[in-house]
């Protein structure tokens, strides 16, 4: 059963000059936790806004729970939960008032669906008389999720829910999502953080409005072909410049305390050549090792591929 389906969806802004979503096709199954992973400006929010019927696509069709986003927008609006990237609840209403307002707007009440939001709401319940504007970032996000869930939607759209939230809250948030998934709710989430990608069932990597790849996180990692090395020395910045100047280098970028490097001949081990080259350049404390690629490596690799194709 598919929950969300996009067929060749295109969206352009500024009189057709800026292409935000470029011929995107993908489908999300029922009960899946699907991640839309890509940098800022990749078109993630536009896709969300099309699926939540806030934005009309310029081309292609999209359905949510089998309903067309253009024709059946009324049905969709009653069945989806949407949490926009920006906190957009009434800051001058209290936690409780916000929640009961959105409940009544959907023709339900807090009591009716309390079970669904209990886990999340219980954490902010001590502050229910506090105005939403006075909550901390993590609590705002919990309130927004509660409000998006209060009418028991069958699918949840979360647009960058963890942007600007501390590491602990982010972890908590993903745990909440997992629990929601167990209740059979389809969740579509977008994030610019590659490390969150592994927490999804399936992910779509997106760049400049185009889908680069759709697969499970491990499938994406597997599809990375060739070897990847982590390398460090005492002068990291110089190391980066030197490595990028190295004739066999395909790509080199910072990754934590190491630089990740791949070579043009992808399966060949260049360890010797690199060490010699760096020695000649006067680097000390050089350390190089082979690593298994992360999602981020795959993403950068695909972007590189796109560039070399173009």
């Amino acid at each position, binding site marked *: 059963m598919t929950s969300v389906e996009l067929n060749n969806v295109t969206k352009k802004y500024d009189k057709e000059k800026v292409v935000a979503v470029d011929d995107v096709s993908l489908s999300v199954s029922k009960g899946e936790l699907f991640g839309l992973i890509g940098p800022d400006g990749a078109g993630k929010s536009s896709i969300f806004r099309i699926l939540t*019927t806030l*934005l009309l696509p310029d081309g292609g069709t999209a359905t949510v729970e089998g309903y067309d986003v253009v024709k059946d927008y009324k049905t969709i609006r009653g069945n989806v939960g*949407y949490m*926009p990237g920006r906190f957009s609840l*009434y800051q001058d209403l209290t936690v409780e008032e916000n929640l009961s307002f959105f409940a009544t*707007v959907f023709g339900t009440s807090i009591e009716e669906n309390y079970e669904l939001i209990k886990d999340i709401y219980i954490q902010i319940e001590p502050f229910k008389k506090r105005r939403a504007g006075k909550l901390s970032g993590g609590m705002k996000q919990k309130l927004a999720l509660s409000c998006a869930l209060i009418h028991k939607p069958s699918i949840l759209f979360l647009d960058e829910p963890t942007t600007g939230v501390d590491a602990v809250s982010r972890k908590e948030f993903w745990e909440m999502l997992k629990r929601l998934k167990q209740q059979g709710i389809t969740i579509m989430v977008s994030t610019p953080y590659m490390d969150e990608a592994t927490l999804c069932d399936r992910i779509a990597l997106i760049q400049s409005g185009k889908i680069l790849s759709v697969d499970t996180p491990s499938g994406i990692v597997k599809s990375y072909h060739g070897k990847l090395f982590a390398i460090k020395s005492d002068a990291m910045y110089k190391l980066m410049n030197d490595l990028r100047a190295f004739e066999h280098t395909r790509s080199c970028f910072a990754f934590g305390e190491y630089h990740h490097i791949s070579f043009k001949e992808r399966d060949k081990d260049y360890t010797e050549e690199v060490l010699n080259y760096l020695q000649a350049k006067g680097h000390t404390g050089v350390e190089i090792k082979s690593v298994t690629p992360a999602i981020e490596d795959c993403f950068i690799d695909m972007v590189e591929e796109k560039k070399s194709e173009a």
Partner: protein
Amino acid sequence: MRTLRFLLQKEFRQVFRDKNLLRQILMVPIIQLLIFPWAANYEVKNISLAIVDHDHSSYSEKFISKIFSSGYFIHSDYTSSFKDAYQLIERDKADIAIEIPQGFEKNLVRENQQKIFLAVNAINGVKAIVGTGYLASIITDYNSQIRAEWVQADRFNAAPAIEITSSNWFNPLLNYKMFMVPGILAFLVTLIGGIMCSLNIVREKEIGTIEQINVTPIRKQYFILGKLLPFWIMATFVFTLGLLISRFAYGIIPQGSIVLLYAFLSVYLFAVLGMGLLISTYSDTQQQAMSISFFFIMVFNLLSGLYTPIESMPAWAKVITDFNPLRYFIEVMRMVVLKGSSFHDVSHHFLVIFLMAVVLNTWAILNYRKTT
């Protein structure tokens, strides 16, 4: 209906929590109505006079004291030459210079006629016209006084004379406040209804809550009605407050029916709120909404007949006033409050405002989209 009730509940909660908005709604009408009418006064007083008396006779003395006893003039200075008096005008120390020629008394007695020279600073047109008007009537009066002294009155007037007396209706004391207060009140209601309504909707756009509302199944008619009604109620409240102020601070008691005033107000508010709504659908930020509203409010205000009579405007400006809702409200206010006009007298105004309300609201609702 249930949805609408909750929307209204939410809206009022927000209004009562916004201390600034409350202050504006309560304080602005009180302050403006208590201060503005005192300042908006066309009665020209304190015209300063520079006097060049070349005669220094008892007649010229009498003439000068007659001028000052009228109460409209204040004394700037006596100068020995017109050149000095002109300098006073140039330095804005005097509005009018009067030159009384040498031999004023002698010629007046001997030759039965004399000339007085007036120089008027016409930068402020109203002051110049009104000032010379006052002076002219004082001079005429003085003239007839002298004639009475010198010419033996016949039993019948030799030359037939028509004396004009006028009686002022509806505002017998020509009290400007009677005229201004109802107009200012109309303006205030427009300001509060129109601007605040548009700002409120745009604020939802600005902080993003409208996104959240748009994904809900709320029908847009309900959402819009939920926005209009609170401001409709608040503007009616301000109007009531204003009527009370004009009753107790200025003693203005509407001659006509209060019910008629409120009936017109309720139709009028839908037109004004519709305009606010329309502005909000065209702007994305409160700043944009504010500048558009400000533009319209300025035009409405200056072309409403609040300060200057519409009858004296050029033809093209008159055409603009035909599309100015404020103009109709001010007219109705003045007609009902001062003249006691009945529904029959203002039915045309009702019709025009009703049409405006329909057009503006339809336009706004069509232009308000939950989807972009």
